[in-house]
């Protein structure tokens, strides 16, 4: 028996599982049905309590190959049911995995009701625990707000790491990069140089720079806009994914705003309005988005989310810059837009030959 409390005073009952400790975080939901191991290890969820809208989570257990970082990154997990796994690759259950990572979970919560609440109210801070709900609410009040914490520091690599042997080197500015972004680059024969977020200069020895995904409020990363401009000066091709897209956009004059309850799903359409006119089904995980004032020069939007018009990707008329607010690396989610890495690497290779 335990509770999920929200900052507006809502208290929902449920059953605790996973680690026996309380958690506080921003409560967000994902509508992705498959891919919970990837989601729970995605560094972009740092500082957040993740609600799964699909009621059965844990069905195929957990295995190493499905991890997006070295461990669980979310603060807490909310599901309707944590299930008993059955899969030939599974090494442990969701419950065991949460315990091993010290992360609490709560099940049997009316997650649909919770999602509608978040949709109507917008995301809220929340807490999971078996304490008196009043004390949980107190814990929420005492904890810093999600938007004010610089989570990137906590998830970024502490030292430079190199992967692969390829001739083309991609410097990844790690704001909380998902392993699958590195995997997609390696798969295409690139060498990857992962550098700490604030040591971004170390990426510039490479042929191109990729600003990665990551957690938290992009406004706290305004220092990184300098990195973008430096890369532009060096004539380095730039790719930005998710938080990286926001950082690059800020450098090019965009304004960042917070979405009411974010885009966290693996089923969202993105329309390519510049290159092919095609529609792709993509993975999203962002609580912020960007918009450009009319004064932003040379910026072109190439990808748009047709439901609410959110900008999902930009390129530049003069500089080799391409970004995606969505996740072309997928994991979890559809592989429809992995070609973006091909496109980027082609640009990089062309530049390298020159």
């Amino acid at each position, binding site marked *: 028996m335990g509770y999920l409390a929200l900052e507006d005073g809502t208290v929902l009952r449920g059953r605790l599982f996973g680690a026996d400790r309380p958690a506080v975080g921003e409560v967000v939901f994902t509508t992705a049905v498959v891919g919970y191991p990837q989601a729970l290890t995605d560094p972009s969820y740092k500082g957040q309590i993740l609600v799964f809208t699909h*009621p059965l989570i844990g069905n195929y257990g957990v295995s190493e190959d499905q991890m997006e970082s070295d461990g669980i990154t979310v603060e807490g997990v909310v599901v309707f049911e944590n299930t008993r796994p059955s899969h030939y690759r599974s090494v442990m259950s969701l419950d065991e995995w949460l315990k091993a990572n010290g992360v609490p979970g709560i099940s049997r919560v009316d997650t649909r009701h919770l999602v509608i609440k978040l949709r109507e109210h917008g995301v809220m801070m929340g807490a999971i625990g078996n304490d008196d709900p009043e004390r949980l609410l107190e814990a929420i009040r005492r904890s810093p707000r999600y938007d004010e914490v610089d989570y990137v520091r906590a998830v970024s690599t502490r030292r430079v790491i190199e992967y692969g042997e390829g001739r083309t080197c991609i410097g990844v500015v790690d704001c909380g990069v998902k392993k699958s972004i590195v995997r997609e680059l390696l798969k295409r024969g690139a060498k990857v140089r992962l550098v700490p977020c604030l040591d971004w200069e170390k990426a510039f020895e490479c042929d191109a720079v990729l600003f990665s995904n990551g957690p938290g409020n992009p406004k706290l990363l305004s220092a990184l806009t300098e990195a973008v401009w430096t890369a532009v000066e060096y004539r380095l091709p730039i790719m930005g994914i998710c938080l990286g897209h926001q950082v690059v956009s800020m450098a090019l004059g965009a304004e960042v705003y917070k979405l009411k309850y974010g885009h966290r799903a693996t089923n969202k359409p993105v329309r390519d309005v510049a290159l092919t006119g095609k529609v792709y089904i993509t993975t999203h995980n962002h609580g912020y988005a960007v918009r450009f004032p009319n004064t932003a020069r040379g910026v072109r939007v190439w990808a748009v989310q047709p439901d609410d018009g959110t900008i999902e990707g930009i390129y530049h008329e003069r500089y080799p810059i391409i970004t995606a607010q969505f996740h072309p690396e997928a994991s979890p989610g559809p592989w429809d837009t992995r070609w973006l890495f091909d496109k980027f690497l082609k640009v990089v290779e062309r530049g390298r030959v020159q």
Partner: protein
Amino acid sequence: MIKSVLVLGSGAIKVAEAAEFDYSGSQALKAFREEGIGTVLMNPNVATIQTSKVLADRVYFLPLSPEFAELVIERERPDAIVCGFGGQTALSLCVELNDRGVLDRYGVEVLGTPIEGIRTALSRDRFRKAMEKAGIPMPPSVAARDPEGALEAALSMGFPVMVRVSFNLGGAGAFVAYSREELQSRIYKAFAQSSIKEVLVEKYLDGWKEVEFEVVRDAHGNKAAVVCMENVDPMGIHTGDSIVVAPCQTLTDEEYQWGRVLSMGVADAIGLVGEGNVQLAVNYGGPEQYVIETNPRMSRSSALASKASGYPLAYIAAKLALGYRLDEVVNQVTRRTVAAFEPSLDYIVVKHPRWENDRFGIREGLGPEMMSIGEVMGIGRTLEEAWQKAIRMLDIGEPGLVGGRMYQSASKERALEALRGREPYWPIYAARAMELGVTVDEIHSITKVDRFFLNAIKRVVDLYMALRSNGQREDLIEEALVLGFTRDQISEIIGNSNTSRMPAIKRIDTLAGEWEASTNYLYMSYGGEYDDVVPGTDFLVVGAGVFRIGVSVEFDWSTVNMALSLKRRGYRVAILNYNPETVSTDWDLVDRLYFDEISLERIVDIFVKEGGPTVILYAGGQIGQRLYTLLEQRGVRIGGTRARSVDVGESRNSFSAFLDELGIPQPEWYYAKDMGEAIKLAESMGYPVLVRPSYVLGGTYMAVAYNEAQLVDFLRRAAIVGERYPVVVSRYMPWGIEAEIDAVSDGRALVATPIEHVEPPGVHSGDSTMVLPPRKLTRSQLGKMLEITHVIARELEVKGPLNVQFIVADDVYVVEANLRVSRSMPLVSKATGVNYMDLVADVLTEERLKVDDDLVVLTPGRWWVKSPQFSWSRLRGAYPRLGPVMYSTGEVASFSSDFHDALLKSWLSATPNRIPRRNALVYTYDDAYKKDIEKVRSALGYLDVMDPESVGMDRLIDALKGGRIDIVITAGDTPDMDYRIRRISADTSTPLVLHPSLAMELAEAFRKGLKMHVEPW
């Protein structure tokens, strides 16, 4: 610019082609109408909703043959044709129209997937080559064009092999062969089921998972994999006979995405435009996946997927066929987001098939050939809740996975035997076996069903056992509700549960709550505490539930028309139903759809939560009848006829007494409480007698006994007879004319239409050929029938529909009366041009029929004939027969100014009927029919008429297997003598006529010939 389009329907309901095509066709018609495009529909299925003038501009009730289609095209000159909304029937017809040059000749454009793509998808060999070219993996296989080739392929591949058939339906003819002998004994049937005489011999992927993706693709190549559905039964059992869950539950993201990529690759390779499904085999112990097959059209799965996800596949497919881009079509549920997305489900659905194998005497287990007759879909927030709901929805008397009669009566050995034999309803046996100590692993090794699913059953069993030992614990009761036990069932297990917990109303919105939805597609669940909606309904129309023999699309027609008639009068209407195939479970139709159980408990829940709407029970057929009294006792307001009147109609005793009181004749009948009494009664009445046990073993609900030996044999074999289980013995009157009256009454006035049967009494009315207006009944006989119907309606204060069945012989006898809609009401409404449900709505909302006279008789101006559709070829091993028990799965109708022309068009609309050109096999082993069969022989004298004696049984069987017999006409019920003849006729799709009365009329119709003249309704 396209101004008019021809839509092909799927014809009669048969195994593997059911109401899902009424749903998809209706959606397509709606989508075209929105665009201002005129629609012409060709479909002889008179019971469907699509064949009403509301949806299509013109309707043709004609056989779906290239000859008739050409006549329709010639007359209507449509700009385009759509092939993907009428199942395999429509798809094959389209290909044939194309190949005969008809489409070119009249300049008819094919909308949606091009013919070449369809051909590639349907031919096993071409499909395999196309996949090879696209680099999509398929299981090792070889195409064969004759039995020798098939054997050679199997030998080179090694047994076991799966034999699949090209251009077929629902896996017809497919089988798994473990040996050379097995292959040889069944291969002729496989070839008989393929219109292009091609089979595929494939490596059998024993135990692999089977999943299916529903893919939409527009003409610009944009795609979405709308739903992933996973079969609980592994490869080797036809999807139609599998329990299916959505969304896919046991695939990792990597597996899911790889399957999605392959499915989209298939869609690209065949140039799909619209919607199609792709079936995949997924290794349970490794990363391999194979593409098995694709349907480049709307299918049963796509209807299920639409209902499972809230994504209206058929509607969107129709828009895509017109050239729209996926992101130009709006999501009909949110009305704000676009159709280019993949629904996220915040619930689980379980589809469960319903079989009628007992009725047909089928002993074989489930396999690659579909046999189920209907299906249900349970929705819940746990797998167990959805699954247990589904089991109850099957209406087989089981209260869930545990505790029912089937469950209790099985020993451990029996349960294991059922699991080994892959018998229908195996989950109940699995549950029973678990209670009796069999482990999940053991059941997994027998069934190869993934442990994930078996664990769900285990959880239910464990809880059931816990409830029995410490029942009153509140946490256990709460857990039981969340795992899908009903309050009634819990009370039964633990005594009184006294729980005040109510299920929550949840909405299906395609996006898991992420966006606000404007439609009200609802279900109820204990997996939540908060309702998504507030009260707001005036009427709750209860649907027909699961389809079974005797309950099919006709009751969906009445449900839908009832609801729409009320809605047109300005009321807020909700429908309660749970059959995913149907139009009534289209959430777009009325104000609210409750996709949930039709049970006392659930109707009360909805009644309370909706603030007391009037509940309409008689529109869905029989399922509502037994709830009248119970609901009335619980204070639920029921519209129309009162419970006590319905009960009179339902109870044999009180109805009989009621008739006696009014001096209305009825066939003599009595109760017998033991064998001796039954024999004595039969003797005093005189043989033949009709016997109806109240406790049936197996599937024989009724039988005719011509002598004492037959009576004793039937009662020993098929029934329990005793003080508590009396058997009804009634006088059997297989002479005279069988007739019925469909009517609506307001308790005073009556609007009625009489119908006559071609077959005499003794053939179930659902299996007989109907004609209206009556041909043979005299004016005075008709007058008497109408008078009796009127008296019954008045005396029972009927406020709504009723149907009275008669035997007209030396007198007019009443056989039964049902105070509800009947199977024939769609036919009657279409033939007379008056929608009977509209009349019922008048009675419900204004308490009177708007007629001037007390008795209004509506009769059509032309001859309308309805013919039954049997599915003998699909019901493996069943003996094709006619009798007091119904066997047909569907019906078709046509009309003409000439009776025999109407009969022929109607009869030809049912498959596999064809006009015999060369010969006919005409015989009977039943002396009672000898004379009539002799008459048929001479009526068909212009053909080469054969019988088994003159030809010799072996030569005859060879000729049948070789497809060299044009028609088989027989009579009587003599399986000992002619099982093989009838069975092989069915297996080879040879037309079968099982009654001389029909045969005589058909002979006359053959002689007159078909009028090649078509007319819209």
